[in-house]
C-alpha cells in the first residue's frame, strides 16, 4: 500500500533526473561542438575562440553589450559574458581570479590595496587600467516648455544642495534670459544605491564649485532630493514628475526624452554631444605610468566647447599572466572595442567615442599585453 503511494513520486523523481541530465549533456555537447568548429577565417576582425568572463560597472553596460554582440556575431566561436554588478564587485571578482577582466568607473585604488591585489592576481605582473568607454553625465530635467536650459557649476551645485528651491530663481533666470521659467519648486532626484555616477558627479561639483559643494565626493548622495533606485529609477522619476531634475547617464536622458542642460564652465554654454565630450577627454591628463592609462579628468576645464561632466569606464586587465588561450581572445576583443569604428557607433546609444589620441594609446597598450 505504502509502496504504491510512493511509486509515482519515485517515478517522477527518476524522470525528472533523467530530464535534468539530458539537459546537462545537451548543453555540454553544443558548447563542445561549437569549439570544435574551425574558425571562420574570412571575417575581418581577428577571431580567437574561447570564452571570456568579465564583470563590473553598470555604467558601461549598454556599450559593452553592443560591442560584444557585434564582436561575437563576427566571431562565432568566441563567447564573452559581461555581468554588470557594479564597479566594486567587478574589481573584487577580478582580483579573486573569478573573471578575466573587470569594468570599473574608477581606476584601481592603491589606498584600498586594489593595485597590490590585482598584481597578485596577475601573477606578479601589473594590472592596467584601459579607458574604454566615456559616459557623459547629463543634468536632465523635466520642465514643460523649457527646451534649453543653461547651468553653471555653481548654480548646479546650489540646486543639488537644495539652496535654490524654485525654477524662477534669479540665479537660473540670469543664465537663461528669454526663457519662461515656471514659479514651481525644483524636485531633485538622486541615486539611492551607491553608484559611481553619484561619485563622479560629485567630483565634478567639488572641483568646479568648491565653495558650494564642500562634501567629500563619495558613492552616496549628501545633497537634497528624493532617492530612487539606479539610473532607470531616477530617469523614470524625472519623466513622471513635472519640474524635476536629476543627474544621470546621457543614454537614460535620451531614452526617456528628458531635457539635457547645457553646462557653462566659464567659456560659454556647451551642449552635450559626442564631440564636446571627446574634447574634455582629450584634455585629460594621463595619471598612470607606461601603458597604465588612467586619466585625471579636468573638471574645471575652460576649453571652449568641452563638456566637463563625464565618467570614464576602464577595462582593468592583466598586462601579463592570463591564460595563454584567453589572452589572444582578450586582445582581439579589446582591439575591436577600442577601434574608431566601434567607438563611433557608441554615440547612438549615449556614449562618447574615445578621442583619437587616447584611442591610439589604448591600442598600443593592448598590443603590449602578453
Amino acid at each position, binding site marked *: 500500500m505504502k*509502496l504504491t503511494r510512493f511509486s509515482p513520486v519515485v517515478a517522477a523523481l527518476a524522470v525528472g533526473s533523467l530530464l535534468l541530465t539530458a539537459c546537462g549533456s545537451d548543453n555540454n555537447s553544443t558548447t563542445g561542438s561549437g569549439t570544435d568548429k574551425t574558425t571562420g577565417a574570412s571575417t575581418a576582425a581577428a577571431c580567437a575562440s574561447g570564452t571570456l568572463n568579465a564583470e563590473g560597472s*553598470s555604467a558601461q553596460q549598454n556599450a559593452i553589450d553592443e560591442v560584444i554582440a557585434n564582436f561575437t556575431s563576427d566571431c562565432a566561436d568566441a563567447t564573452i559574458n559581461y555581468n554588470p*554588478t*557594479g*564597479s*566594486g*564587485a567587478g*574589481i*573584487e571578482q577580478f582580483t579573486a581570479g573569478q573573471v578575466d577582466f573587470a569594468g570599473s568607473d574608477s581606476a584601481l585604488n592603491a589606498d*584600498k590595496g586594489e593595485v597590490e591585489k590585482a598584481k597578485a592576481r596577475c601573477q606578479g605582473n601589473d594590472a592596467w587600467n584601459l579607458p574604454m568607454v566615456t559616459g557623459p553625465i547629463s543634468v536632465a530635467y523635466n520642465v514643460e516648455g523649457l527646451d534649453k536650459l543653461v547651468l553653471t557649476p555653481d548654480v548646479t551645485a546650489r540646486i543639488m*544642495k*537644495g539652496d535654490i528651491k524654485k525654477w524662477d530663481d534669479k540665479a537660473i533666470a540670469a543664465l537663461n534670459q528669454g526663457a519662461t521659467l515656471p514659479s514651481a*519648486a525644483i*524636485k*531633485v532626484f*538622486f541615486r*539611492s*544605491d*551607491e*553608484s559611481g555616477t553619484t561619485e563622479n558627479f560629485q567630483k565634478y561639483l567639488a572641483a568646479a564649485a568648491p565653495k558650494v559643494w564642500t562634501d567629500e565626493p*563619495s*558613492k*552616496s*548622495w*549628501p*545633497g*537634497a*532630493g*528624493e*532617492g*530612487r*533606485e539606479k539610473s532607470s*529609477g531616477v530617469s523614470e*522619476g524625472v519623466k*513622471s*514628475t513635472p519640474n524635476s531634475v536629476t543627474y544621470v547617464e546621457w543614454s537614460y536622458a535620451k531614452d526617456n526624452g528628458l531635457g539635457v542642460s547645457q553646462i557653462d564652465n566659464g567659456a560659454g554654454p556647451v551642449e552635450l554631444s559626442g564631440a564636446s565630450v571627446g574634447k574634455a577627454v582629450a584634455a585629460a591628463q594621463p595619471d598612470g605610468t607606461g601603458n597604465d592609462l588612467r586619466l585625471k579628468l579636468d573638471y574645471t576645464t575652460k576649453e571652449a566647447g568641452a563638456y566637463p561632466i563625464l565618467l570614464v569606464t576602464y577595462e582593468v586587465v592583466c598586462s601579463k599572466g592570463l591564460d595563454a588561450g584567453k589572452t589572444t581572445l582578450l586582445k582581439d576583443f579589446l582591439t575591436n572595442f577600442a577601434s574608431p569604428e566601434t567607438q563611433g557607433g557608441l554615440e547612438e546609444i549615449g556614449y562618447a567615442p574615445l578621442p583619437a589620441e587616447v584611442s591610439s594609446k589604448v591600442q598600443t597598450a593592448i598590443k603590449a599585453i602578453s
Partner: protein
Amino acid sequence: MTTAATSSPPSPAATPSLISGRGTGRSGDRIFSVLTRGSGALVVVLVVLTGAFLLWKSVPSLLDDDVNFITSRVWQPAANPPAFGIAALLYTTVLSSVLALLMAVPVSVGVALFLTQCAPRRLATPLGYLVDLLAAVPSIIYGLWGAFVLGPVIAGTDSGPRRAIEDALGWIPLFSSTSVARGNVFLASVVLAIMILPIVTAISREVFLQVPRANIEAALALGATRWETIRVSVLPFGKPGVITASMLGLGRALGETIAVTIILSQPSSLEDFNFSVFYGGETFASKIANNASEFSTPQKTGAYIAAGLVLFVVTFLVNALARVFISRRGDV
C-alpha cells in the same frame, strides 16, 4: 537532542532489499530515524551558522562604529571612522510591515470565513486556488506593478486616497503631508499587504476548516444566526491560528526585498526625520539589496551585515512569537 544524528552507521545485517515491499522492518525504521533527525539537526545548524556568520562579519565594523548603532540614523559606513545606525531603517521596516498586516489580516480573515463558512463548495474551491495563485506571483512583479500602476493612483501627491487621508488625519504626525510623490511607505505597505494576503488567508482557511462540526451545529441548534455562529464558535476556535498566520505574514513583510526596493524613495540626508507614512525611507532588506554591488571593503560590508543581523533577530522574534501562539493553541 540533535547529536544522535551522526551516530548510527548502517548495519551490515540490514541489507535485504528495501524495494521488495516486505520485511523492511528494522532497517526502514533506522533509515527513517536517521533521515528525520538529520533533517532536524540540519535546520538548527543552518540557523545557528547563519546567525554566527552575521555576528562574525559584523562585529569588527560594529566596534569601529562612531555613532550609536541602535539610535542613530546616519548611514556612512564608508567614512573614516565609519558611522552607521539603524534607527531609520528599523522604523521604516516595522512601520511598513505592521501597516501591511493591519490592512491584510481583516481582508484575509474575511476571505477565509467566506470560503469556509459561506461560499457554496462549487465556488469555494476555485476561489481558494485563486487566492493561492496570488502567492505564486513573483515579488518583482508586485514591485513594478506597485510602482508604475498602483502608485500614481493611490500614493501620488494628487491622488485621491492619499489626499483623503492627509486631509482627515494630517494633524497626526504619522499621516502628515510630504512632498514625496509615490515612493512612500504608504504605497509599500499596500503592496506588502497584497503580498502577504495569500499566506494569511491560506492558514486561516485551514484553521477555520478544522472547527468541529458539532460546535457549529450546536450554535445553530440554539437559534444562532450565521454571524452569531461564526462569532461564538468559529472565531474563538480559529483565533490562535489566525494570530500565527499573521505572524508568518509579518515575517514575510519584514524581509520582503525587491518590491520594496523598487517602490521606496530614499529621503535626502539633509532633511530632518519625518514620521509620516507619506515619507520615503528604506527597510533593512531594501538598503542591503540596493547597495550589495558596492560592498568594496570588509568594514562597509560589515555595516550592512550588521543591519542584516538586526533584521535576522527581528524576524526570529516574530517567528518565535508565532511558535508561542501555536503551542498555546494545543491547550485550547
